[in-house]
């Protein structure tokens, strides 16, 4: 029987041609207590690709990308991001690597004691030691323009709507010019119109910043709009991997319900 990794290797090379791989996971396992969340995950992320990971709630999608940035330590397996072995990095090296990865959280995770401007300035000040007012201002305005919210800079996060928060959250990661973007449920809790706007933003970010992205979602329309390639996660295993149109035809009892609405 084909192991998932072998299957993955075959298909990846088939679909993405010879684009370089920027991140790869091999046989990643993670369990919390007795519960196995990730049983054996392997995947590759290619340059400038939008990879959607589709799965039901509680299948460990978020855990997977948190393992990739070292927020959660995987029990076993290999995680290689931008040429670094994430699991063996020192804290300082890990911070170095994280600067090149943008992470958009499900709840957007804005620092609610700071204004939008301070939110965006925070990573600049803490990581790049940029303190000049003019420079900060330019970077902040540019990032806000890219997400289409240039006149919210003096608002508090509590004054913003859910969609705006998402955008600001994305702007905060973009300000560090990441090479890889990880989106955790970008459209969760948003109405279809706002969700579509976010999906368009995800695409425009790829165009503008030339990023490779992993998009975690259970929203099939999000997957349709943003994906180059989809990996379906079922019971902690990567079950199916294909384009959206191929996946639509699936007869798999675990995946078919996604498309049957």
């Amino acid at each position, binding site marked *: 029987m084909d192991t998932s990794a072998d299957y993955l290797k075959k298909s990846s090379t088939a679909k993405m041609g010879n684009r370089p791989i920027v991140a790869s996971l091999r046989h990643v396992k993670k369990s919390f207590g007795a519960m196995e969340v990730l049983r054996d995950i392997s995947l590759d992320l290619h340059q400038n690709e939008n990879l959607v990971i589709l799965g039901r709630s509680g299948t460990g999608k978020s855990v997977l990308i948190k393992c990739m940035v070292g*927020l959660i330590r995987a029990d076993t397996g290999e995680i290689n991001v931008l040429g670094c072995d994430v699991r063996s990095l020192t804290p300082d090296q890990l911070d170095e690597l994280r600067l090149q990865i943008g992470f958009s959280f499900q709840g957007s*995770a804005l620092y*609610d004691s700071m204004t939008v401007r301070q939110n965006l300035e925070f990573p600049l000040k*803490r990581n790049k030691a940029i303190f000049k007012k003019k420079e900060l201002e330019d970077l902040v305005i540019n990032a806000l323009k890219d997400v289409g919210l240039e006149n919210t800079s003096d608002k508090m996060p509590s004054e913003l709507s859910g969609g705006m928060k998402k955008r600001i959250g994305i702007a905060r990661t973009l300000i560090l010019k990441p090479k890889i973007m990880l989106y955790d449920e970008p459209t969760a809790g948003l109405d279809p119109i706002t969700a579509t706007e976010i999906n368009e933003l995800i695409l425009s970010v790829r165009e503008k910043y030339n990023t490779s992205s992993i998009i975690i979602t259970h929203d099939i329309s999000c997957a349709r709009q943003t994906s180059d390639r989809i990996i379906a996660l079922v019971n902690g295993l990567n079950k199916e991997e294909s384009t959206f149109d191929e996946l639509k035809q699936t007869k798999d009892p675990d995946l078919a319900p996604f498309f049957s609405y």
Partner: protein
Amino acid sequence: MKFKPLLLRSADIYQFFQRIFKQAFHAPSEWREVLKQCFAVGNRSFFLVTFTAFLAGVVFTRQSRPSLSSFGAESWLPSLVSQAVIRSLGPLITGLICAGKLGSNIGAELASMKVTEQIDAMEVSGSRPFSFLVVSRVTATTLMLPLLVVYADCVALLGSFITVNFINNTGFKLYFNTVASHITYLDIFSSLIKATFFGFAIGFISSYAGYNSDNGTTGVGKAANTAVVISMLFIFIIDLVMLQFINLFR
């Protein structure tokens, strides 16, 4: 096997402790944030400390007066009150008030940041949230508690003086001369050192509770609760242990 979670937890606490010290002295300093937190600590507890210390001074004076006057030693009131306030009452009241006020504040603040993934967000943008959030707060409480204790001592003595003045017409100069002549430097220093430990305990326990809180809104409540209760408990424990050590020098 029931011991295992306890042991794991204490190992975790120890590592948290170690991390604070490592980052406080080795990581790039967070003086800007420390200053901000110091101000917050003072600002949050200033009114409460003033109020409680003043009342404690008044009440303690009024309650110890009858027993002193029953053997004609009313003139000993200032020295009795000053020793009680500076050795024990001032640090204890400040510690408990700050444990309540700052403990719940820090615990809930960090826990809600944890729950809404703000701490994770800092982590993944490489912003070193531990030193930014935890080290700065622990440093701030450790530095500010002694200051607050000095302030509380003064306010409590003032309250006591006003009471004594009201009843006996004792003058300001006489009262504070008596107070000053019965306080030793050992009293003051030991009380300040005690306050430093109180401050560290409050900051450490509250930060730990908040930073390691469970996810979900119940986690926030639990963290705040743990922060306050354990901080208060530890204030009494530290008080006892410090008493033993201070008695060696007395």
